[in-house]
């Protein structure tokens, strides 16, 4: 709309599309390994959750104890199996999706439906096998990323929000423009915006470490080796619940992340995470 005015004001140069180096090789490789791990850990995790689809708080929790969340199956009036998602005392009918869903064409008790689990049929042992293999890969990959991030200055340079990005005025501006799906252009697009930085830091330094630590807390062997883990999360069942809650937040992050990738240019974003090159509009004179 006002590009003509700006051009006139700048006078010197035409806006020009240039490819900048956006992501280092380490970031790109660890990102895609993480994508693979996340998909498999999530789906095999839902398989494991289905073996006892209830969440408790504290050290213990089983059938007779109070659970704050449950994916249950009940007999309806006609004798048909109905799925119920219970949060505290609130019961929500979720037949076909949560609590009870189709297995071989018949509605059966099932926490998460077969399409969401790995493997697709009920097999806790197989789910655990996939989960722990990819948990190791995820931890090794994440460790490599953290070492690189600190040593190569990636966190300091790219992820730590700059002072000017953290002013309430700037943050409000970013929220308002994000809500209208308008993203930084030109020089401002060279760096991550503040919301991006905060989201990535939250995932890399809070949610993913919480996933690993709560996962380890569920292991009776690890609890004997590192008793402080149990204290940190207030019990094994609390850790199991937090593992589930953090996983839910990660799914939420991935949904928003993918929506932003689409909204801000699918091709450009994908290319930058595969080849490292990201296109921005610049007015710099040719050098």
């Amino acid at each position, binding site marked *: 709309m006002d590009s003509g005015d700006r051009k006139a004001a700048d006078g010197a140069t035409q806006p020009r599309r240039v490819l900048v180096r956006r992501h280092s090789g380490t970031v790109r490789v660890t990102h895609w390994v993480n994508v693979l791990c996340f998909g498999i850990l999530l789906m095999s995790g839902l398989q494991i959750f289905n073996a006892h689809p209830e969440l408790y708080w504290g050290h213990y*929790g089983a059938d*007779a104890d109070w659970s704050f969340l449950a994916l249950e199956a009940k007999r309806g009036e006609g004798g048909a199996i109905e799925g119920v998602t219970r949060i505290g005392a609130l019961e929500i009918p979720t037949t076909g999706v949560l609590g009870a869903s189709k297995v071989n064409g018949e509605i059966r008790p099932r926490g998460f439906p077969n399409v969401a689990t790995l493997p697709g049929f009920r097999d806790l*042992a*197989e789910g655990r096998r996939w989960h*722990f293999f990819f948990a190791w890969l995820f931890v090794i990959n994440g460790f490599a990323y953290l070492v690189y991030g600190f040593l190569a200055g990636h966190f300091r340079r790219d992820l730590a929000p700059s002072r000017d990005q953290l002013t309430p005025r700037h943050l409000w501006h970013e929220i308002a423009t994000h809500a209208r799906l308008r993203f930084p252009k030109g020089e401002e697009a060279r760096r991550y915006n503040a919301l991006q930085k905060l989201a990535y830091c939250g995932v890399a330094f809070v949610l993913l470490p919480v996933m690993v630590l709560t996962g380890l807390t569920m*292991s009776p062997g690890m*609890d004997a080796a590192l008793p402080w883990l149990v204290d940190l999360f207030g019990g094994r069942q609390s850790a199991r619940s937090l593992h589930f809650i953090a996983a839910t937040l990660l799914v939420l992050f991935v949904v928003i992340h993918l929506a932003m990738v689409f909204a801000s240019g699918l091709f450009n974003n994908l290319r930058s995470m595969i080849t490292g090159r990201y296109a921005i509009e610049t007015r710099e004179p040719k050098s």
Partner: protein
Amino acid sequence: MTIRIDRRRLLTGAGVTAAAAALSACAPLSASDGIRSVLDMAEQLTMRAQRLLLSGDALAREFTEADLSPVFKSNGTHNPDDEAYQRLAEGGFADWRLQVDGMVERPLSLSLADLRAMPARTQITRHDCVEGWSAIGKWTGVPLALVLKAAGLRPGARYVVFHCADEYEKTLDGSGRYYESIDLVDAFHPQTILAYGMNGRDLPIAHGAPLRLRVERQLGYKQAKYLMRLEIVDSFARFYRGKGGFWEDRGYEWYAGI
């Protein structure tokens, strides 16, 4: 230039295909032994890592009476329908004997009274089922180490195999009988006990009367109930399907520390 883009496309394409294949086709793939053996490497890695961290006999947490689960869930077999077992139960297990044999210097046949006469250990611990639930119970019994020392292990002994009275899965060849095995690291751990008491009373039938194993740093399926015989061996490959336990034979990890 063209070549570079093509190669780049090829690599991208290959990466996407591999990821898609991994995500969508794992179920059929998982049946293949190749994938299984790769995934099984994680179990070895987990066991080695935990054994490294657990050197020095780290103890599982012990709780207080106030922490006990109001109801301790009974899982697996609740009452073995084996005729011989039922006769023993009717007699209050007065005729029950624990056989200890295999690679030992002195095979033993121990009555409940013999076990109760040995030094006892009581511990309040958390039981973690592989399904995800936990319950806290108080267990009283004989440290397995004392029984093994009384029998005297012969050179080459590596595992204790626990033979149980319950047939958890009905099969024609009897391969559905419950059994478990642990190695000597866990067998000699101070919290590994043969429990005859639970929550201050005799061990109930639902929880494995007259005697069950407690191996506190592993999951619930290792805590074999209805013990009849301990067999000391150098390998468990010859038992049933060869994986060292009822659930292990059905795909679960032999090392159940996670």
